[in-house]
Every structure is written in C-alpha cells, then in structure tokens.
C-alpha cells in the first residue's frame, strides 16, 4: 500500500526541463544520422544568418558586361566560384542572400505554427466537449483543401507578399498537423494518474496545463515542430518557384532563385549554374531537415525505433 502512495507522489512531480534534456541527449547520440544532419543544418543556418556580414557589399550590383554565358563556375577560391547570373550578379552571393530570407521565413513560420498548434491543440484536448469538436472540425475543414491551392489563393489575396506576411500565411495553415498531434497527446495525458493526483491536491487548470501536461507532451511537440520545418521549407520553395511569392528582384529566396533561373535561361541546356546552386542547397537542407525530424522522432519514441 505504501508503494501506491509513493508512486502517486513521484508521478505527480512535474517533469523538469533538466531531466528531460538529460534523457534526450543520450538517445539523440545514438542516432548518428540525425546528429550529423542536425549539425549540418545548424551550420547552414548560421551561415545564412550572418550572410549580410560576410558577403561583399557590391555583390548584388548588376554588371551587364559579365553575363552568365561568359561566366560559368570557375574553380577558384573567390565569390566567382558559382559563376554569375543573367545580369552579372554573383550566383554564390545571391544563393546566400536567398538562404538568409528562406531560413528567416521558414523558422518564423515553424515557430508561429507550432505556437498556434500547441495553443489550439492543447486547449482542445484539455477542454474536450463541444469546443474540442468545433476546433477539430474547423481543422478538418481547412485540411480538405490542398495546401497549395489555398496558400496560392492566400498569397494572391495578400499581394504584395513580403517575408513576414509569407511566414504568417504559412503558419496560419500549417498549425493543423501540430494541433492534431498535441490534442491527441493531451487527451491521453489528461486522464493519467499524475494529473488526477495534481488535481486532487488542488492544482488549478492553468498549473496542471503548464506544469504537468505541457512538459509531458514536450516530446510530441518537438517531433511535430522538427517534422514541420522540412514541410515549411518545401511548400515555401514550391510557391516561390512559381513566382507568386516575394519577387526575386527585391528579396531573393531559394525557391524564387530556382524559378527565376529556369525562366531566364533555357533551363538546363545553357546557364544551368544560375539555378543549380540554390537547388543543391535546398536539397541538402531538406535532406537534413527530414533526417533530423525522423531521428528526433526515433530518439523520443523508442518504441518506434527500428
């Protein structure tokens, strides 16, 4: 009988962030692919973040004398290594500028979408009842329209699209998967013993939610957010590729650089390097983001591991 009591008391103790992090790291260390891709991703994002400091200020200047036909990639350690584009701008510098914008909007959109998803999913799962049903039906309703059509429509509605606007539009659609998994997790956690114990000790709803439910759902939230990052980058690049997002002349992103390069030159045949740089970088980022997402999911949910 004594054991039941201790069990209840231990179980009622909230999960502290320190404890969960000491559990996360050893598990993540056993996922070499995820670890490596995580570091590559961080390295790429850091380079993208400090891009304005490292690229030469004259790089975006147009040089009509040095058009792309005469300037293929040259194997020298200079900014000319990836050649120049149709109006003589350095492709490497343009790619880094695109990375700077793309990572800003992707990270912002992922963060906002996760926050919205946790708020709505958490509220819905904790409250249950008609509020839950209505919120989830709303999510279903948004979910039946293909993301591309709805996002393209929203993009045209809010023209001219700027980077913050684009992040908000993406976040307003992509919170749905986060909300679904958070809701499912909170719904199962809500009825567990440690929550009942906390409630019987007189804890308020707010305390139960923030001190007991959210920390225990943190694995689910982290998995959802890392998975979402890859999707956000992919969808954003797709919309930018069609030239419907932010214009490449003003704000280069990886997607619109690829799209622009392919529209301006005869795609692969001549001047392939004007878009191959951003394309390769985009693929590397996506590979890393997907591997990281899967690795984190495997690390945090051991039963899923193979």
């Amino acid at each position, binding site marked *: 009988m004594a054991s039941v009591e201790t069990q209840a008391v231990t179980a009622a103790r909230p999960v502290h962030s320190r404890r969960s992090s000491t559990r996360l790291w050893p598990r993540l260390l056993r996922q070499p692919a995820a670890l490596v891709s995580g570091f590559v991703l961080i390295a790429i994002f850091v380079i993208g973040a400090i891009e304005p400091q490292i690229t030469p200020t004259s790089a975006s200047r147009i040089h009509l004398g040095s058009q792309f036909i005469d300037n293929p990639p040259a194997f020298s350690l200079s900014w000319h290594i990836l050649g120049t584009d149709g109006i003589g701008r350095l492709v490497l510098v343009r790619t880094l500028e695109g990375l700077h914008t793309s990572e800003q909007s992707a990270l912002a959109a992922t963060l906002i979408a996760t926050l919205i998803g946790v708020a709505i999913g958490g509220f819905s799962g904790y409250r249950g009842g008609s509020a839950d049903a209505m919120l989830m*039906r709303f999510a*279903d*309703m*948004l*979910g*039946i*329209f*293909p*993301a*591309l*059509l*709805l996002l*393209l*429509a929203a993009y*045209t*509605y809010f*023209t001219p699209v700027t980077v913050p606007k684009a992040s908000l539009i993406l976040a307003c659609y992509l919170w749905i998967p986060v909300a679904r998994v958070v809701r499912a997790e909170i719904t199962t956690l809500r009825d567990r013993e440690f929550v009942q114990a906390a409630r019987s000790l007189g804890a308020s709803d707010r305390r139960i939610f923030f001190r007991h439910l959210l920390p225990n759902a943190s694995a689910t939230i982290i998995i959802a957010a890392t998975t979402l990052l890859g999707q956000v980058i*992919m969808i954003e*690049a*797709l919309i930018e*590729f*069609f*030239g*419907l997002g932010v214009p490449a002349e003003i704000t280069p992103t990886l997607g619109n650089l*690829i*799209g622009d390069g*392919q529209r301006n030159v*005869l*795609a*692969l*045949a001549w001047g392939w390097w004007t878009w191959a740089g951003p*394309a390769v970088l*985009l*693929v590397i980022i*996506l*590979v890393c983001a*997907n*591997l990281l997402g899967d690795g984190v999911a495997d690390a945090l949910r051991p039963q899923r591991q*193979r």
Partner: protein
Amino acid sequence: MALLGRRILPAPGRTDMMPGMGGFLLRRVAFGLLVLFVGLSGCFLFFASKYPPLYYEPLGHAYWVWLRGLPSGHSLNDGLLAGHQLSAVGSAFGRTLLLLVVTLVIVLLISVPLACLSAANRGSPFDFLVRCLSYAVWAVPVFLAATIGQEGLGRVPGGWGLPWFPYVGWAGDCPNGQGIDEHNFQCPSGGHGLNHVGLVLDHLALPAMVLALGFIGLQARYLRSALLDALDAPYVTVARAKGLPERVVVLRHAVRNALATFVPALVSDFGLIFGAALAIDFIFQLGGIGSLFINSLKLNAEGFVPIDSYALVFALLLAGGLMVIVSILGEVALWMLDPRTRPD
C-alpha cells in the same frame, strides 16, 4: 499475389462484412458535403470581398447571390469566364484525376514489392539501400524533379538528354512551352480510339513517374515499418510454426495485416500527392486543375486580369470534393480491412 487478392475481397456468400456499411457511408457522405459547403462558403466570403464579379456588392448580398445560384450551377459557371468554365474545368478535372490514378498505380506497383523485400530482409544491405534512397528522393522538391526530368527525358529542341517523352502538353494540345518555335510548329493530332489512349499515356508517363518518385520511397518506408510490426506479432510466429513457407507468411499474413496501417497513411498523404500533382500539372502544362488555377492567379499577380472569385471557389470545390471522396474511400477500405475500426 493471387492468394493475397483472395484474402482481401470478401468470400462469396459471406455477407457479415457489410452490416451497417450503408448507414456509415451515408453519414460520411453527408458530413463530407456539409464540411465542403461550410468551407467553400468561408472561402467565397473571403475572396468575394476583393475579387469580381461581386466585390462591389455588400458581402451579405453577394453571398446570397452566390447561394441562390448554387443549385442551378450559375454560381459555378457565371463568372468572368461565363459559359466556358464548366467545360474547361470539367476536362481539367479529368486530366488531373487520370494523372493521379496513373501515379498511384506506379507508386503501389513499385513500393509494395520494395517494402516486402526490405522488411523480409531486415538490416540487409538491400534494406539499407532502400532506406537511403527513399530519404534522398523524398528530399528533392517536386518542381526540381519535374524540370530535371523534363529536360533530361523530354523531347526538347536542342536538348542534351534522352528524347523519350513529350516535353510538355496533353495529347492533341498545342504546346507553348519554352524553346518551341511557334511559327514553324504544327499542332500534333490527338489520334483516335486506341491511338488516342496510347498518346495520352505517352504524355502522362513522364509527369506520373516524376510525381511518383518521391512517394514511392515514402510509402515503401511506411509499409516496411507496418510490416515489421506485423512480422513481430504472435500470429506470424504461429504461421511460421505451422511450417508455412516464408513467402506465404509475408504475403498472406503480414501484408494483409500491415495494410490496415498502410491504407490510412496512404490516404492521409493523398493531400500531399494531390498538391504535388498540381505543381507537376503546371510545369508539364497538362491542362489540369493546377494549370487552370495557377494560370488564372498568375495573370492577377502580373496585374492583367483580376481573378474571378467564382472560378476560384469552383477550383477549390473540385479539389476539396476529390479529397473528401478519397478520404471516404480510404475509410471504406479500412472498414473492409480491419474489423476492429468499425463503429458499432
């Protein structure tokens, strides 16, 4: 596979598969229609306030006009494209549907054997290779795969690749893509009868393969994971203990049960496949929903013709309707595959 087919379909004379199916279907269809109607109303209200033909009207009145025109089809057909819209959108819908069907066939034909082989040889170099490849192809954005496939395998004038497939367009359509000299170009004939079918498949082959590429890896990974769960289950041990050959154990016992996990995953990914199909459709100029939709938006973004909210809502209706139908089909399949999921 013959064995597999016999196990999935209900045996003749066994009617216990279907009780309650009618009511279930009716409820699902009614709910789907309701969700579609509410969603489309929301979209219409959103877009009608900014785009023609009703943006000058007060919103309530605009909505009433749209609602009143729904039963007769005026609300779908009366926009700026008056009259042409229904036929144009109808054929676009057919083309997108055909692209999706061909793609799904390719995905299933390749990913199911791949998943079976890698699950049966867990941890082997083959398994590892399939996993690596599936990650690699999944990370290539669909527009990139499409343009590279187009340049590498399409018949593009002055191209460097293997000229195996048509570059853009649908059988009988006049292509107007990059690099085509419009003055010296004769529109190809669409052919008749079987010839037409062949030409259509010829034009569809490359887009469908490019679209299938990423999803083959993804679906193979899902099915492999579901198969591994099934192969660890007690009934597989029993089947092996009975002395059944491994082929029968995997195909008849494991796959049959893994499908109950795999089908919902495939259905929930249908939205992704559909979205990618819209992009492919635009890049290859197949004249499906994607081309229709993006072309009309494109003009708006350039500032030529403002978009028509009627056309927009119609495109969303077609896309949403297809998604609802697929999700119902998925639930029916799950109903047949896994008795445990049936509501009492």
